[in-house]
């Protein structure tokens, strides 16, 4: 047996013993554990599962063991993922700490910061949110105006952030702040970690066109932040930010994969068969059929492209500007899908509220509306195209 095969056998045995049935489908509800000071668990097993996985470092399998990780190679991590999927185990922990902040800290933070924050992320003790966008700045992130002024061993922070997902449930926020207003805009930016229990931090959820949302606006009013919470060099935060954005786009681009979390949705084909009252045979609406097929085909192309990118990454290339392509396409395919779904169900997808409309109907409408955000948040499609034109194609400014 190769080392990897041994690892697979061991992992399978360990999971069999330690993964409680309450976090395995079909027993497990389609819910996630996000950790944090006010962590909520969908059942007792979920709590046990998180503790056991954190103990092994397998909430963050590839991170170094000294920071709470599992120290696994990429191949081993894939084996772990495969084995968890095999038994349909929910992941023990989701967080922006894992997917976005962690990789950045590993690359840019000092030893104390890594020790303190990475281990707490790995154990699910602290829930993080991201403070990048600002009201009025939009996709032009670097025009941010939240000000951090050094006073002795603290920064005093004033300003506000928008689109801070789940800020109302989070414990800490990683922030881009302006530390030097007198230099060109990309230069005077720093990357700061802020405890949201600090006096002067307040959070207000945002109502979207689709209704309640995970997004918030976060305000900073003379918030004192220890200077030790600065990551990297003062005024050099933009480099960290860019790296983090790549991770974010990669994560958003990978969205299609992790969508297995939710309850299984009816496929478009199933919806069409039901609505058009055509349980079998060729769909009677040739135009809808053609649109559905085009979407399926585009998804197949996307899947191949994602695989190609992953195969290329194995050959040593990390997430680069082509992640913009994933973001651009995935958001638009999602929009087309929810648009088609709503057009197919027609009258049954137009309700906003009232006993009249069942939950599934209302969900179709809300999802369609919410989906419009996907080509805006996390960098608009226009920004992604700018990035491709500039960084991939090298077109002139």
């Amino acid at each position, binding site marked *: 047996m190769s080392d990897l095969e041994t690892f697979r056998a061991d992992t399978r045995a360990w999971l069999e013993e330690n993964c409680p049935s309450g976090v395995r489908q079909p027993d497990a509800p389609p819910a996630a554990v996000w950790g944090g000071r006010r962590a909520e668990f969908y059942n007792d097993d979920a709590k046990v599962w998180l503790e056991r996985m954190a103990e092994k470092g397998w909430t963050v399998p590839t991170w170094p063991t000294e920071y709470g990780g599992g120290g696994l190679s990429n191949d081993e991590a894939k084996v772990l993922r495969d084995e968890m999927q095999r038994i349909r185990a929910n992941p023990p922990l989701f967080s922006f700490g894992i997917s976005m902040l962690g990789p950045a800290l590993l690359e840019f933070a000092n030893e104390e910061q890594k020790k303190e924050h990475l281990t707490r992320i790995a154990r699910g003790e602290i829930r993080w949110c991201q403070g990048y*966008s600002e009201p009025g*700045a*939009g*996709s*032009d992130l670097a*025009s941010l105006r939240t000000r951090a002024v050094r006073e002795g061993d603290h920064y005093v922070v004033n300003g506000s952030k*928008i*689109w801070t997902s789940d800020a109302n449930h989070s414990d800490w926020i990683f922030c881009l702040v302006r530390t030097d207003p007198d230099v060109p805009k990309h230069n005077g930016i720093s990357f700061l970690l802020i405890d949201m229990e600090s006096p002067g931090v307040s959070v207000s959820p*945002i*109502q*979207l*066109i689709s*209704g309640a949302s995970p997004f918030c606006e976060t305000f900073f009013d003379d918030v004192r932040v220890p200077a030790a919470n600065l990551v990297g060099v003062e005024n050099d935060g933009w480099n960290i930010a860019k790296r983090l954005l790549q991770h974010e786009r990669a994560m958003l681009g990978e969205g299609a994969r992790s969508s297995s979390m939710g309850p299984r949705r009816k496929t478009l084909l199933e919806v069409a068969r039901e*609505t058009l009252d055509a349980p079998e045979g060729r769909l009677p*609406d040739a*135009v*809808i059929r053609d649109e559905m097929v085009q979407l399926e085909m585009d998804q197949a192309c996307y899947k191949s492209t994602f695989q190609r990118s992953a195969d290329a990454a194995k050959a040593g290339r990390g997430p680069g500007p082509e992640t913009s392509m994933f973001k651009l396409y995935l958001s638009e395919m999602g929009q087309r899908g929810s648009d088609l779904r*709503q*057009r*197919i*169900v*027609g*009258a*049954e997808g*137009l*309700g*906003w*509220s*009232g*006993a*009249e*409309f069942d939950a599934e109907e209302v969900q179709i*409408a809300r999802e*369609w*509306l919410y989906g*419009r*955000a996907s*080509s*805006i*948040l996390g960098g*608009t*499609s*226009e920004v992604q*195209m700018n990035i491709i034109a500039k960084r991939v194609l090298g077109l002139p400014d």
Partner: protein
Amino acid sequence: MALVLTEEQELLRDSARDFVTNQWDFDWLRKVRGDSDTAGYDPDIYKQIVELGWTAIPFSEEVGGLDLGYAELGVVLEEMGRKLMVTPYLSTVVLGGGAIALGGTADQKAAVLPGVCDGSLLLTLAYQETSRHDPYAVSTAATVDGDGYRISGRKTLVLDVQSANKLVVAARTGGNAGDRDGLTLFLLDAGADGLKVSGGLLLDSRSGGHLTLENVAASAADVVGEVNAGADILDELFSRAAVAASAEMLGGAQDAFDRTVEYLKEREQFGAKIGSFQGLKHRAARWFCEVELLRSIVMDALRAIDEGREDARELACVCKARASDVYQMSGQEGIQMHGGIGMTDEFDIGFYLKRARVSELLLGDSAYHRNQFAEMRGF
């Protein structure tokens, strides 16, 4: 008729625009969501519309109407559409009133249309039963019972079903679901025994919902037009209503466009007005063309109705198909060009997308009308 507004029509447009701008509260679209006792519209606004004479536009003078045409109806609908005004106008004047005016008996006209004109009566049309607009897909059965009928069935997406005093209901007196023959229209009281309304709030803050009929009694005098020939009325009614709805949609598309162009001129990013970016410029230019083309076809289709032109029904298909596509595009581009702020409920632009979607699916989406058009043209 030329494809320009006459002086009278321009006056009507200006006064309508004034009224909508000054009297209608856009925020009503948000407020109604928290209001479980809502009538589904603002009665005060509707009262003023009646006073302006809008409800009387397409009806003859005998019944208290102004005897004007669809060209004028389109003018006020466009202005209402600009600010997404919610009233039972489309269901009362165009759908319910239109059905009676087209096919009703003299008694029915005398009984109903004066009330439509003076605002004392609200109507609607209940026909749809399947998820998508399909006028002949009616299963609701009207079976002969003595001198009259008993009607049973279920209707969906009945616009303003909550507020209507009377309903024009399509039922089957012969044939099977999908047949053109065998449809009969009935004029029923909203309070009739066995008639159950179950309404809700639609995406776009309009009201609508289901209607359930259980052995609802109707007399022979309640038949609109002739028994089994309801489709003759419906074909013409839907063709006209599609154009009227398109006029309202044009207003919304135009306003979403205008608002966005203003935003492009004001909003700065990356150190410049975003309207100076050629990527957005070209999209705005195309969008402009789409709205202009929509305006032309709406004007032409409205006049084709008034002139009784042969191509009126074909134009109606072209009109509603394009209105559906252009309005949807306007809602989407409006939000996309506004960026994140366009996604917030606080900002107005998102409401255009919602209205666009509901309007698109009401009375047939663009695929439906392309197919209809193809059949008329023998494709």
